[in-house]
């Protein structure tokens, strides 16, 4: 599996000092990158190069580098998490790029996700939505035995499908309306599919949607782009469920 070596790459990347200053694109050259290098390792190499030249390295978010923490977040060549499907940026490898290619890297762009620096954005809006209701109200202790309430395998699996969301924000970044419906619906669906979460399902849907609207995310127009770029394959069937839950809850009011 001798990996190809990409001799020349041009990296066009968004640089922005902080939230208050305006940003702009800078262009850098980078050479001799092996196809087996991950995209973020390529940026590490570029940063090492910049540091050696006495420049400030490019700031980008990342942590686990194995596609589960949801911290990495780059818009690469016009696509959230870059030109591969079902993966996060940290799982993207350079073999997906061509010799001599210019790679454009931008931060997630959404009013609700302001840029903090370079490619790092502030996703606390997601936290706030979850704080508004993305939980089951139980205290530690005093709960029934784990097997006390049987849950059908199908329901458990469906809940798990929705619960797989890593909160990366690619859905918002991709959506032409910067809508957070996929993210919110994933949490609402996960909990609504379980008997434990059913109890406060109406309250949850109402509160989370209200918070989502308040924070300046756009309105969903069902384009479906989010589910295609979602690294965890969260389906927009969850959005239909959220709509259902919300409308049912509001009708009851």
């Amino acid at each position, binding site marked *: *599996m*001798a990996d190809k070596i990409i001799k020349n790459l041009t990296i066009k990347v968004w640089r922005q000092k*902080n939230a208050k200053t305006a940003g702009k694109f800078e262009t850098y050259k980078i050479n001799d990158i*092996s196809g*087996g*290098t991950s995209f973020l*390792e390529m940026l*590490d*190499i570029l940063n*090492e190069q*910049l*540091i*050696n030249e*006495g*420049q*400030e*390295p490019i*700031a980008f978010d*990342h*942590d*686990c*580098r*194995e596609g*589960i*923490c*949801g911290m990495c977040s780059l818009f690469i060549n016009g696509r959230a998490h870059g030109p591969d499907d079902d993966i996060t940026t940290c*799982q993207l*490898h350079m073999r997906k790029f061509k010799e001599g290619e210019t790679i454009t890297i931008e931060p997630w762009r959404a009013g609700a996700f302001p840029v*903090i620096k370079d490619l790092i954005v502030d996703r*606390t809006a997601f*936290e706030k939505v*979850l*704080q*508004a209701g*993305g*939980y*089951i109200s*139980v*205290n*530690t*202790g005093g*709960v*029934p*035995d*784990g097997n006390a*309430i*049987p*849950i*059908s*395998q199908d329901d*458990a699996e469906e*809940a*798990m499908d929705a619960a*797989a969301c890593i*909160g990366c924000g690619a859905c918002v970044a991709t959506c032409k309306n910067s809508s957070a419906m996929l993210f919110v619906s994933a949490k609402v669906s*996960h*909990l609504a599919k*379980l008997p*434990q*979460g059913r109890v406060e399902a109406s309250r949850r849907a109402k509160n989370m949607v209200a918070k989502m609207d308040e924070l300046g995310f756009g309105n969903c127009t069902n384009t479906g782009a989010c589910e295609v770029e979602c690294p965890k394959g969260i389906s927009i069937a969850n959005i239909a469920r959220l709509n259902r839950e919300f409308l049912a809850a509001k009708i009851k009011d």
Partner: protein
Amino acid sequence: MTVLNSKIPAGPLAEKWSKHKAAIKVVSPANKRKLDIIVVGTGLAGGSAAASLAEMGYNVKAFCYQDSGRRAHSIAAQGGINAAKNYQNDNDSIYRLFYDTIKGGDYRAREANVYRLAEVSGDIIDQCVAQGVPFAREYGGTLSNRSFGGVLVSRTFYARGQTGQQLLLGCYASMNRMIGQGKIEMHERNEMLDIVTVDGKARGIITRNLVTGEIERHGAHAVVIASGGYGNVFFLSTNAMGCNGGAAWQAYKNGALFGNPCFVQIHPTCIPVHGEQQSKLTLMSESLRNDGRVWVPKKKEDAIKLQEGKMGPNDIADEDRDFYLERRYPSYGNLVPRDVASRAAKERCDAGFGVNAEGKAVYLDFKYSIERLGQDVIEARYGNLFQMYEKITDVDPYKEPMQIYPAIHYSMGGVWVDYNLMTTVPGLYAIGEANFSDHGGNRLGASALMQGLADGYFVLPYTIGDYLADEIQTPRIDLNHPEFAKKEKAVTERFQNLYNVKGDKSVDSFHKRLGNIMWDYVGMARNAEGLKYAIEEIAKIKADFYKNVRIPGDFDAMNIELEKAGRVADFLELGDLMARDALNRNESCGGHYREESVTEEGEAKRDDENFTYVSAWEYKGENAEPVLHKEELVFEEVKLTQRSYK
């Protein structure tokens, strides 16, 4: 000199915890409202503790360095979580879980702690189910279990290959509820850099706001360290990029003892290092060893051809393959514990039989099980993992064996704590991977998640009350106390010193150098000579670091290099302590393998006579040698035996 008092309650093992709970003090609800607790870390340990403490009525301030509490590295755990529920009716019990954990830890953990862990394990599952963790279920709607390396019962609960993620999202949801109610004050992107003690008691922390670069003061009546493990001292590990030893290290530098620093776990099934620029290693679940066979070529010339890329694994006939685990350990075969499997791989590669260009990989082959069970069965079991492997390596594991190699995975060592999880500094607690307490010399699969949640949900919330009951008269901590000013100044200076070096080498270059030394001399196999060499080399790297490190960017703004520099500064000191501890422990035990202490067949040999103790190191100042304290381990219940997997 600090006298180590582990505060293990008297009485029969099975009654210790309940008697202890009955004996310790409780804080009234009205008083809880007046007490503040700082929790550093939002992983399984910190997250569950923060949520539980807030629910009880305390005011909690939680910290993490990521942009969200949900991203703590607990999220990456794949396999599962153990609990002695005996749902499978396979004669599992609290005692059996306790026994497996003690034995798995090679008899270097405290009986009382481990027993308590097994005791509360069942409650954890109930709690998680109530929070909406979507554990795998049977058709009848009951919870599923799987078995995990080194044990004879099925007691591992799991949520697909994302158990850690789901458990973490469970306690993170509970945290969110408390944040929404104003009971937890959440500080994301905020790194703890020092601990403030007043009159010998922990009263707060100094942090750096990673967005603004500001140094901040935070006060509380007690401080809980739940900052995870320090595997990243090796640079390459399965930990996240930001995992650090910093918080635990500051505890150490402020008077807490550091327990068993040399005990780190090496996981046998990780994707091998690729080239020079690798930044982290990816774990492939241990479950793969259930159906994969591990081998290298029998003939040296085949190995050389593989290394040069002139031949592929499928060109080697079955009779020319050396299934070395099956050969050496006929009864456990490919399922020997992690440390044994890791060392065996290293042994083969060191002998020149490695199969990739670097000569540092062995094969994990599914050909045989595909022949036996069919591809669809294998796909159903491991589809996700195979896909992940292919994304990373561009090799299809259905057609060609996987390449794997051991990597640093977990740190059993950590801040020394007593039975109440309190360090030697009053009011300072350590939970989860950050403490040393429950895994001895080696951790069993699926036990770390259990420990983190046990500490956070069911142990600390009780034991912390015993301390806080005496603090109800203490008013809210005054941030203008001179101790805060002093520590803030010290932290600022520490970072300014680094920033002002203005040398010509990147932080990463030092981290990599440290990592190489650690891996080569304080890694899978250690000897006195190598360890002494490592101590000298680390000192050199450290000196060079403070002379030549280059940190571009602004000091008082977001500065990624400055963050990394602070962590590497800690790792340089921690690496030194690990080497010292490894040097002191002249026995092979769990993840710690001393080449001087082996049986005739080359297997690890424990030395119970001389080393049945926890090494607890005391910090003595910048240029002084640390002092070793020993907590003798007393085994009342189990008999010490040599592990054998032959």
